[in-house]
C-alpha cells in the first residue's frame, strides 16, 4: 500500500487542450478518494495518469516514495477497474482472475489460493468456469473487481465502475464497495460523475472542472462549504438554486450589509458591496408557516414530482436565475418571464399541486453567497 502524489501535473493533448491542468493532489495511504466532475473535466485522464496509460506533459506523479512518470503500467503495481470492465472475453472467470498473477510469474499454488480466496470474498465461486459473456452485469462487475484485487496492488483505481449497472444493483454494489474497502484498506482512487456515489463512498472528494481541482475535502465539507459557484451547483441533488443578487449597505444598520435577490432580502455581516449570486439548497426552502422567522419568497408551483416521503417541487420565484457552470444540460425551456426557475423539496403530506402559490421561508444562515464576478464563495462565520 502507498500514497499517491500529484505535483503540478498537467496533461496536454495534441491540439493544445489541457485534460489535466496543474493538478496538485495527495491521496493518503488507505484513503478512498473520489474524483468527481462533469464529463470532459479531466477526471478519467487523471486516473489514467496514475495507471500509466497516459504520460504527464508536466509535473511529477509519485506512488509511495517512487516517482513514476516514466514507469510503465505493469511496473507500477496498481490495479484498475474499467467502466466497461474489459474482461478478457476468451478466458474463463478463473483465468481472468489469474491472468495478472500468471503474468507476474506467481507460483501456481499461490495463484490458485489467491484466486479461490478472492472469489469467495466476492461470491464468484460458482462462476469460475464461465466466460464473461455468460455472466450478468453485476457478476461481470464483481469479476472485474476481483481481477484487480487478487493481485493485492498498492493502489486500486476505478473508472466509473457502477455506471453500467441498473439503478438497484448500483446502490447494492455501492454498499459492497464500501464494505470491501473497509476490509482490505487499499488506497483507492475512484472516478465518477455521479455525485451521490461520491458523497456516499469517499473519504475525500475532489471536484474537478476543466482539468483543475476546484475543491478537495470531505463529502460533508464539500457539501456544506462549497468553495465556489461550480462546486455549489455540482454537489447536491437536486442542484442548489441560484439567483442573481446585489449586496449593499443596509439602510438601518451600521456595518451590516443587506443582500437582495428578487423578493429575497436579508442582512449579512462582512459582505463587500457588489453583484452576488445567492444559493439556496432545495431542502432549505421551507413551505408555509407565517410564524417562521427570516426572509421569504413566493413560489409559483409548475410541476410536482412525488418521491414518496417527499416531493420535488419545481416552480418559479421572482428574480433572475444564475448559472453555476456545472449544469448538465442547458435548460430546455427558456423562461422569458422575469421569474427564476427553482426546485424545492416539500413533505409529501403537503400535497402540493401545480398552479399553487406557496410562501416559502429560508433560514438566512443556510443561504450561500458567491461573488458574481469570480464565482468564489463569500464565507461568513
Amino acid at each position, binding site marked *: 500500500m502507498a500514497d499517491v502524489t500529484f505535483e503540478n501535473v498537467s496533461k496536454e493533448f495534441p491540439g493544445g487542450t489541457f485534460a489535466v491542468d496543474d493538478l496538485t493532489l495527495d491521496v493518503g495511504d488507505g484513503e478512498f478518494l473520489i474524483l468527481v466532475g462533469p464529463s470532459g473535466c479531466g477526471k478519467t485522464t487523471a486516473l489514467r495518469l496514475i495507471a500509466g496509460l497516459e504520460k504527464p506533459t508536466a509535473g511529477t506523479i509519485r506512488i509511495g516514495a517512487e516517482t513514476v512518470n516514466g514507469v510503465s*503500467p*505493469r511496473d507500477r503495481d496498481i490495479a484498475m477497474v474499467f467502466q466497461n470492465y474489459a474482461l*478478457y*472475453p476468451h478466458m474463463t472467470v478463473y483465468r481472468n482472475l489469474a491472468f495478472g498473477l500468471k503474468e507476474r510469474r506467481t507460483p501456481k499454488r499461490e495463484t490458485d489460493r489467491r484466486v479461490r480466496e478472492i472469489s469467495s470474498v466476492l461470491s464468484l465461486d460458482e462462476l469460475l468456469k464461465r466466460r464473461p459473456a455468460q455472466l450478468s452485469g453485476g457478476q461481470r462487475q464483481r469479476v472485474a473487481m476481483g481481477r484487480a484485487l487478487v493481485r493485492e496492488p498498492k493502489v486500486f483505481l476505478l473508472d466509473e465502475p457502477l455506471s453500467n449497472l441498473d439503478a438497484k444493483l448500483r446502490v447494492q454494489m455501492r454498499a459492497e464497495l464500501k464494505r470491501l474497502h473497509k476490509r482490505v484498506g487499499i488506497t483507492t482512487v475512484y472516478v465518477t460523475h455521479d455525485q451521490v456515489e461520491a458523497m456516499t463512498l469517499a473519504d475525500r472528494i475532489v471536484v474537478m472542472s476543466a482539468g483543475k481541482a476546484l475543491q478537495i475535502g470531505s463529502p460533508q465539507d464539500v457539501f456544506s462549504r462549497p468553495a465556489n459557484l461550480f462546486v455549489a451547483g455540482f454537489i447536491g441533488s437536486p442542484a442548489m438554486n441560484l439567483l442573481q443578487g446585489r449586496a449593499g449597505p443596509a439602510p438601518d444598520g451600521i456595518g451590516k450589509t443587506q443582500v437582495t435577490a428578487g423578493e429575497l432580502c436579508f442582512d449579512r455581516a462582512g459582505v463587500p458591496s457588489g453583484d452576488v449570486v445567492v444559493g439556496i439548497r432545495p431542502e432549505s426552502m421551507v413551505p408555509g408557516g407565517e410564524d417562521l422567522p427570516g426572509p421569504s419568497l413566493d413560489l409559483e408551483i409548475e410541476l410536482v414530482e412525488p418521491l414518496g416521503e417527499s416531493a420535488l417541487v419545481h416552480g418559479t420565484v421572482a428574480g433572475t436565475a444564475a448559472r453555476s457552470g456545472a449544469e448538465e444540460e442547458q435548460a430546455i425551456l427558456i423562461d422569458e418571464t422575469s421569474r427564476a426557475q427553482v426546485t424545492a423539496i416539500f413533505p409529501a403530506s403537503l400535497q402540493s399541486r401545480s398552479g399553487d402559490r406557496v410562501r416559502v421561508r429560508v433560514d438566512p444562515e443556510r443561504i450561500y453567497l458567491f461573488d458574481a464576478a469570480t464565482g468564489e464563495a463569500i464565507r461568513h462565520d
Partner: protein
Amino acid sequence: MTGIVPAARVPLPEPAENRGPERASRADRGKQRESPGGFLFSPWHLILIPIALVMLVPMVWMLATSLETLNETRHFPPIIFPHTLRPANYSDVLTQAPFARWFVNTTIVTVVTVAGNLLFCSLAGYAFARIKFFGREVVFVLILATLMIPFQVVMIPTFIIVKDLGMINTLYALIVPNLAGAFGIFLLRQFFRTLPVELEEAARIDGASRLSVLFKIVLPLSGPALATLAVITFLWTWNDFLWPLITIYTPNNMTLQLGLATFEGTHQTSFNLLMAANVMSMLPVLLLFFLAQRYFIRGIATSGLKG
C-alpha cells in the same frame, strides 16, 4: 477452429457492441437460409443456379478427362461421360513424374509462408494499429502503396536480390520474399483497431508486456481475421506459378503448379495425366475452402474494409 467461434461472438464491451446488431442480423439471415423448414426459394436462384452450373463445367470436364484414355481426350466434341474409367491415370502420374516430391515441396512452401504471414503481419499490424511511433502513418501509407504495384514490376529486382542471397533454385527463393505482405498487414491492422483498447490496457496493467498482450489477448480474439489471412495466403502460395517458374529449374525443387506445366509437351500433351495431377493438386485447396469459407467470407466482409 471451434475455439475461435465463441471468441468471435462474445459481446465485447462498447466498441464491439456497436457492431452487434449488424452481426446479429447477418447471423439471423444465415440461420433462415439454413432452416430445416424447407428450401427457401428466392428469384435470385433463377440466376444463381445457371451460373453455378457454368462454373462447374470445367471442374467436371477436368474430373472426366482425368479418368479417360489419351485417345478419348482428343475426341471432339469432348466426352464428359467416359465409357470406361481409367483410374490408372492417377498412379501413372505418381510414377512418371516426381509428383509426390512436388506435393511435399508445395506443402512446405505453403505452410511456412502461411505461418510467416500470420506471425509477421500480426506483429506489424499490431504495431501500426496500437503503438505510437515516429513516422507511423507515413510508413503505413508506403506499405499500402506497394499493393498498387503489379508483381511484374518488382519481379526482376526481387529476382536479383534473391539471386544475390544465393537462393535461386531452392525453396528459400519461394518462401523468403513472401513471408510478410502488405495485404496481411493492412487486414490485421484494420481488425486489431476494432478490438476494444481497454482489454489491452487492462492486460498491460495486469503486468503483460506488449508481446504478451498481442499473443494472449489480441490474437485469440482475432480468429476470423487470422483465418482469412491464412486462407488467402494459402491460395496465393499454393497456386503461384510465375515466381516458381522464374526461380526454380530443377524438377526436384519444383512446386505442383510448375511441375504440372511440364506435362504440356511441345508436340503433344497428355491431358488425361495432366488432369489427374490437377485433381490431386486441387484437393487440399478445395478441402481448405470448404472448412474455412465461413471465415473467409466473413473476414473479407467485416474486417477488410471497416476501420
